[in-house]
């Protein structure tokens, strides 16, 4: 252990009045293991259908676009339609996620490349882990089937989430993520991205501008079944 580390700990301990060290250690261990939730906002105390609406409303309020499809099989056409409406090419990098692999892309006009995005990919398609209704926030969990760069490099980010994955609060999401154990032996994925709207800045005269370094457009496709 380094000299600096020891010196910092000595100073920190010197500044904290503590009579019972064992009790303090117990309190900290309990806190870390307890995952006790704080106050949950009332706005999410609604049924699942209303949560889906709240999610869409909140996401749209921060410049995301949201479309609904009935089943995963409709995804290629839905994305192709979206891209056409924006005058964008029907070419995209797509996360090598089993849910996306199971879809027949060849039947649509979409040309998808199953890999992490490259610098010149204009469109990236990724699969969400969940979505939080409270603030219209997408949750992306990194791993071999979900490269985190997909959420930032392409200028249009298309995110796919199932309606059943839309949950009320951030805490609901952490509970799901802990039990999903997606990190192959680790408790949590290496990177968890919570995404609320498009890339934005107010750095030039406090004027809100969208699309600085990250995606200029965020399109969310909600799959109603499955």
């Amino acid at each position, binding site marked *: 252990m380094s000299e600096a580390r020891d010196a910092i700990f000595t100073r920190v301990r010197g500044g904290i009045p503590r009579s019972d060290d064992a009790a303090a250690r117990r309190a900290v261990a309990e806190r870390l293991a307890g995952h006790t939730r704080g106050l949950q906002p009332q*706005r999410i105390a609604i049924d699942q259908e209303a949560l889906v609406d709240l999610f869409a409303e909140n996401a749209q309020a921060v410049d995301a676009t949201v479309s609904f499809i009935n089943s995963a099989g409709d995804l290629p056409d839905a994305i192709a339609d979206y891209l056409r409406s924006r005058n964008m090419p029907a070419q995209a990098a797509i996360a090598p996620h089993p849910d996306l692999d199971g879809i027949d892309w060849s039947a649509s006009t979409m040309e998808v490349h199953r890999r992490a995005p490259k*610098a010149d990919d204009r469109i990236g398609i990724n699969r969400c882990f969940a979505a939080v209704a409270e603030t219209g926030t997408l949750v992306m969990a990194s791993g071999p089937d979900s490269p985190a760069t997909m959420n*930032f490099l392409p200028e249009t980010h298309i995110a796919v989430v199932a309606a059943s994955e839309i949950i009320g609060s951030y805490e609901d999401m952490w509970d799901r993520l802990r039990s999903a154990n997606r990190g192959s032996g680790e408790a949590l994925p*290496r990177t968890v991205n919570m995404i609320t709207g498009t890339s934005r800045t*107010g750095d*030039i005269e406090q004027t809100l501008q969208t699309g600085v370094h*990250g995606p200029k457009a965020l399109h969310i496709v909600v799959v109603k079944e499955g």
Partner: protein
Amino acid sequence: MTVHHLTSRNFKEKSTAALEDAVLQGNLLKLKDNFLARRTKAKESLPEFDDLRDAAVVIKKHTIAHLDLYLEAFEASVNASGGHVHWARDDTEARAIVLNICKQENAKTVTKGKTMVGEEIAINPFLEAHGMTPIETDLGEYIIQLAKEPPSHIIAPAIHKNRQQVADLFNEHHPHLEPRDADDVDGMLADARIVLREQFLKADVGITGANFLIAETGQTVIVTNEGNGDLTQLLPRVHIALAGIEKVVPTLEDTMTIMRVLARSATGQEMSSYTTFSAGGRRKGDLDGPEAFHVVLLDNGRSKLLGSPTEDILRCIRCGCCLNACPVYGKIGGHAYGSTYSGPVGAVLTPSLAGLSEAHHLPNASSLCGRCEEVCPMRIPIPKMLRHFREEEVASGMAPASARRGIALWAWFASRPGLYRTMTSLTTGVLSLFGRKRGRFSSLPMAGAWTATRDLASPQGKSFQSQWARRSKS
């Protein structure tokens, strides 16, 4: 904390110059209508906002009372997820740690997400002196890096620049791109995207700050809007996160409670665009992410605040809300403070970390109106701390001689009630006699420092004490 880049001693000259800077005044005027108005709106649309503030305070108080144990837990969690923790007592040690990691990587280009600790330890000039090229990638930080200036606001570092100045800087530094008009903000944004994208892709090391360090999971958290922080930490081979030791929180649940007040207080957003939790390096099968993950934990004077009258400032989450609410910051901007942290939080942090003798003007740059404490999501009693420093300033003889003589004179009268009453009613009488007609004085002998920049209201009627005496009788 070493103080080589502190210029807080020149506060009076710098604040006077700021008041005469027309561009700065124009930019500062917008603070109220933007950040602060949006914060009010966000607060109104979340009925639980004030209760969440209380809960956030409780979390941070608990953490600070167990800071050593949570730091131990955080370190163990980082190690368990394959990351590395480094400890720095001061800025010199922190710079050496960063340089050492960069050297091992043979780094040439080092991209940077926004980090106030990076400013605190002045990492950029240090890396430059060692032959590396640090590139700020947050748009505001990039603008001021081109201008060779420090940030003037915690979350809006280039708030002192107007669009013409940004266009001039871009035109000077982007000769290969088409020149931009001041009104072509979209064009400037597009240019920054092109220029910085190239840097993201070639960077060897990425340095970010951290809004939170989570003891439970060993994650560092960044909260951003542009996406630059994520490209900074995802694309290079190595990610270094710089953080003060007070940034640790116990669990993910605790983090989310504080998160609910952070963006709302800072920009008035419900959530910032990108909130990212990172732990360790790239894992087996991952298609991207850094190979190595380092966290540099900086003390730099923070530990000595524990148990001190300014301990509560360790709760600060750097939202910048107190700057937006402060009437003094709103007139002079951030640079006048001469320190990394400006505004009310800077007026407490700077003397706390660097020593009062380096920054004794700052706690005086306040009318103690209390707006900072009123809006602070962590309910930090900033005015109380400013008063503490003022008392210390007088006690240690740092206050200017004229102020000390004035207070001594007042104290002499105040401890002689009869004489005090006579003198105050006399003064009140004279002032109200001469000032009654206009209601105010635009100049007054012995009060020139006051009347040089504003009028002094003339007393109306009798003194408080004589009114009190009269009303008590009736």
